[in-house]
């Protein structure tokens, strides 16, 4: 039922190919969110993760055009680190199916008209 996405197919140079610009964005990110890293090696690693996340944010923007995606305080975390550190819903397939199938705690159906 969705209209096709109108996609820009011409344009200037890709800012994500410009290392200087990315470095500058990373400096802004570190300052804005008060990030500190253990040593130069850790700093370089986080910079590479940051760059990968900018590309990921751009992919998300294409797939989710009605929202705005970009740099957040989680931009120096890999998706696995993000999941491990900030997500914690312990669902299992069985508990999910049980809830779908019904349980003693099913809410009664409420009227929704009028």
């Amino acid at each position, binding site marked *: 039922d969705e209209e096709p996405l109108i996609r820009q197919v011409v344009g200037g140079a890709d800012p994500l190919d410009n290392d200087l610009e990315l470095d500058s964005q990373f400096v802004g990110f570190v300052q804005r969110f008060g990030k500190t890293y253990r040593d130069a090696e850790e700093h370089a690693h986080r910079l590479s993760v940051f760059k990968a996340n900018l590309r990921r944010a751009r992919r998300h923007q294409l797939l989710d*055009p009605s929202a705005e995606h970009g740099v957040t305080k989680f931009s120096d975390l890999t998706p696995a680190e993000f999941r491990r550190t900030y997500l914690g819903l312990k669902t299992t397939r*069985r*508990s999910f199916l049980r809830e779908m199938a019904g349980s003693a705690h099913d809410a009664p159906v409420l009227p929704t008209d009028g």
Partner: protein
Amino acid sequence: LPEDFDWRDHGAVGPVKNQGSCGSCWSFSASGALEGANYLASGKMEVLSEQQLVDCDHECDPSEPDSCDAGCNGGLMTSAFSYLLKSGGLEREKDYPYTGKDGTCKFDKSKIAASVQNYSVVAVDEEQIAANLVKYGPLAIGINAAYMQTYIGGVSCPYICGRHLDHGVLLVGYGASGFAPSRFKEKPYWIIKNSWGENWGDKGYYKICRGSNVRNKCGVDSMVSTVSATHSS
């Protein structure tokens, strides 16, 4: 049902909190739902403790005894409600403050500020979800958070989004007309309170599309629970 509804406008939603580097989203979702239910029962907003759930709730899923609430290592909102039914309730945030780390249980029954009367699992049906939200207050829900790491604002409505639930949040309202520029039409949405602080998303909140042609986007309709409270002060 009203076209738009937001419990923030009615005083049933506490301040945005920050879970820090701890997988305790489930406890924020559960405490947020009880804060709302307690407000409806008592007319007073009590900001409730998540650390009590992190430290003291080790309730297990009845169908899977090895899947238990485990503080920063994750949990389930319905298990938390079950714990609260057994333990008597939640203390206030100021009496049992959040540390963002697993700790030993220091629950003091004499300081209970809100108690669970009952909890229910709502059907995977957007009308029923909206009706339960309006009638019983903010709802504890699960969501697939894949797009939330990079979210800044607007109405999220990804073309492709998994339905595997990995994050616990609080459904506080819905709107009928979030503008979606790329699709040149108004898009209805859910309003979700997150627990990653005010400097994430839309002042700590997330909007995700709803409606018949996009139903259950990112699994948002598939694990919804409501709680009711008895008040004790």
